[in-house]
């Protein structure tokens, strides 16, 4: 019955021949990239191996593939996009001086067995792909003829491989790379958010569907239909709407949880980098028209709340604040004022689907806060500018002398600056300079980027090798 005579046999014979050629070509290309040595670490080769092994085994088992499943194999062979990530991760295309330091920083949260591919994309955005191996495994597990155990054995490790991307034209803009904290958030919380949401969805789906269906039944145009048509339309529309509610709510929880992780680890630098990047976009757009992402103003509000210790310190004038960081804090206060408008929430409430979704999001917020805290146990509090103001001020002094802000103190009593401290110092320095000269960026910003990148690299080197050098110096 599934095999008609309407040309299917011709289509399947042609497809089978084409798939064999495509899979073999994909495997050859993947192998070439796998053998390339021009990568900052071994992760890109691992991803190339995943594609190669998948393509090779799909080709090898093509004879056993039932006719009706050839299109599924064709869909899987469209995984060549992953080779683009491999190709873009060559040393010459990445801000290589911060790659090792960033990897060490990320491993602190993700685990020593985690590997990263940090590569540029020709899109003005940051991104991360998690669960690449798991997604392949899940998809391949549906092919009952496919040798999954052999695939697992040949592909090797990979459970903890993460592909992080940044905007190609911002390669040098290390201050903006504080957005990588958000991507770290995806890595360490996304699966937990999904699991937590799946349980919640199981409980709430029926009532949400019922409310949406009632809305559809109450629609004036619906009343004009015949009874049979009414129920048909209600079923289709309610299914669609409920699925949209699920997508919008899940995306909101995934993004805001990742935002919270980002701001916990990078503090005000995370708020600043998100605020700066989103000024170019519509900040109140409804999630439904925006790939299900929460409005920017909504996200900035959450980040500003997380930075409230620093922001309250300056707004309530209760504490001595170093003059070097005041312009940065005042700029951040303006972001908080910007988020006091509820125009984003009005936009969300204007659509029953997003309104339903954010009802769910609000119910899940406490759970998500706990989830963030349990995911980064050493960072219960957000990195604070005010608490670290002495060190940050010293680093700003170095920047003013055009010296990389990689350490504080005087040799040999030095303390290498952490990645988060360097980024916050650079942001504070930038805003201090801009407060004195609005056109400062035009001539000086690239120098700041280079000093910052150098500082990150030097700090990594002195953290890793410094203790041995000091030991040798003291012995002499």
């Amino acid at each position, binding site marked *: 019955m599934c095999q008609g005579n309407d040309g299917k046999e011709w289509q399947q014979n042609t497809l089978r021949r084409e798939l064999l050629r495509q899979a073999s070509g994909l495997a050859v290309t993947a192998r070439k990239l796998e053998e390339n040595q021009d990568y900052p670490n071994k992760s890109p080769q691992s991803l190339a191996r995943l594609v190669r092994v998948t393509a090779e085994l799909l080709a090898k088992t093509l004879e056993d593939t039932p006719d009706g499943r050839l299109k599924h194999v064709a869909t899987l062979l469209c995984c060549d996009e992953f080779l683009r990530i491999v190709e873009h991760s060559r040393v010459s295309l990445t801000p290589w001086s911060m790659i090792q330091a960033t990897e060490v920083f990320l491993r602190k949260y993700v685990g020593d067995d985690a590997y990263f591919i940090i590569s540029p994309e020709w*899109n003005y955005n940051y991104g991360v792909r998690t669960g690449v191996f798991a997604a392949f495994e899940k998809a391949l597990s549906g092919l009952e003829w496919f040798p999954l155990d052999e695939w697992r054995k040949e592909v090797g490790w990979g459970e903890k491989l993460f592909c992080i991307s940044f905007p190609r034209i911002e390669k040098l803009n290390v201050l903006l790379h504080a957005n990588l904290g958000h991507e770290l958030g995806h890595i360490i919380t996304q699966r937990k958010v999904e699991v937590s*949401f799946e349980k919640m969805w199981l409980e709430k789906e029926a009532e949400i569907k019922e409310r949406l269906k009632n809305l559809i039944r109450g629609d004036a145009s619906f009343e004009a239909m015949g009874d049979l048509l009414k129920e048909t339309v209600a079923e289709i529309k309610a299914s669609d709407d409920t699925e949209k509610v699920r997508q919008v709510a899940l*995306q909101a929880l995934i993004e805001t949880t990742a935002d919270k992780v980002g701001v916990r680890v990078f503090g005000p630098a995370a708020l600043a980098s998100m605020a700066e990047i989103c000024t170019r976009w519509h900040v109140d757009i409804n999630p439904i028209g925006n790939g299900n992402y929460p409005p920017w103003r909504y996200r900035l509000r959450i980040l500003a709340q997380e930075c409230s210790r620093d922001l309250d310190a300056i707004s309530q004038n209760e504490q001595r604040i170093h003059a070097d960081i005041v312009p940065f804090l005042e700029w951040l206060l303006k972001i908080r004022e910007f988020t006091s408008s509820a125009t984003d929430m009005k936009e969300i409430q204007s659509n029953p689907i997003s309104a339903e979704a954010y009802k769910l999001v609000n119910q899940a917020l406490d759970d998500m806060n706990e989830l963030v805290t349990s995911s980064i146990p050493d960072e219960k509090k957000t990195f604070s500018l005010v608490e670290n103001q002495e060190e940050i001020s010293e680093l700003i002094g170095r920047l003013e002398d055009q010296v990389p802000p990689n350490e504080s103190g005087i040799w040999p009593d030095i303390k290498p600056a952490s990645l988060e401290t360097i980024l916050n110092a650079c942001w504070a320095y930038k805003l201090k300079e801009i407060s004195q000269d609005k056109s400062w960026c035009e001539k000086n910003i690239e120098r700041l980027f280079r000093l910052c990148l150098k500082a990150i690299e030097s700090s990594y080197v002195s953290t890793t090798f410094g203790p041995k050098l000091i030991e040798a110096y003291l012995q002499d």
Partner: protein
Amino acid sequence: MVELLESAHIFEASTKLQFAATCLSKIAGGEKPTQQTRDILTWTGTLLMRVDWRRDEWASAAYINPVMATQATAVRPVFFETFFKWFKEAKREVPDIGDFLKLFYSFLRSGGVESKLTSEQLDLAAQFLQAFSENLLSRISTNGIPKPNPVPVFA
């Protein structure tokens, strides 16, 4: 961000439904179900009963794991879209669609063992599963056309 694993879930559903469609055709032709066939039909029955929320059994979530619940929500719009199109053709063969679905789902849940459906009805059901599978697959493949522009936000 969500897309990769979600696509994998939809892919898995599509490929298993296609397999189930082939199994139904074989059973309609007189073949006895193997253990592999029984497993895939049971899985299909569980998924469909969760997907089709017009069924009374839908309310009973005891045998549903949360992963399948979200998988069911993701495929549901395609299910109804496929169902109503298929129903136009099928209503000549199965005048009482409610009874037919009840028998069909219970047949699937039994792993293809307890059948009160005729071989013609099994063929009809196979056609439905195949169409459902193909429609799901088209949701995650580009179908040969250029991808839409990416949403300009960072993931």
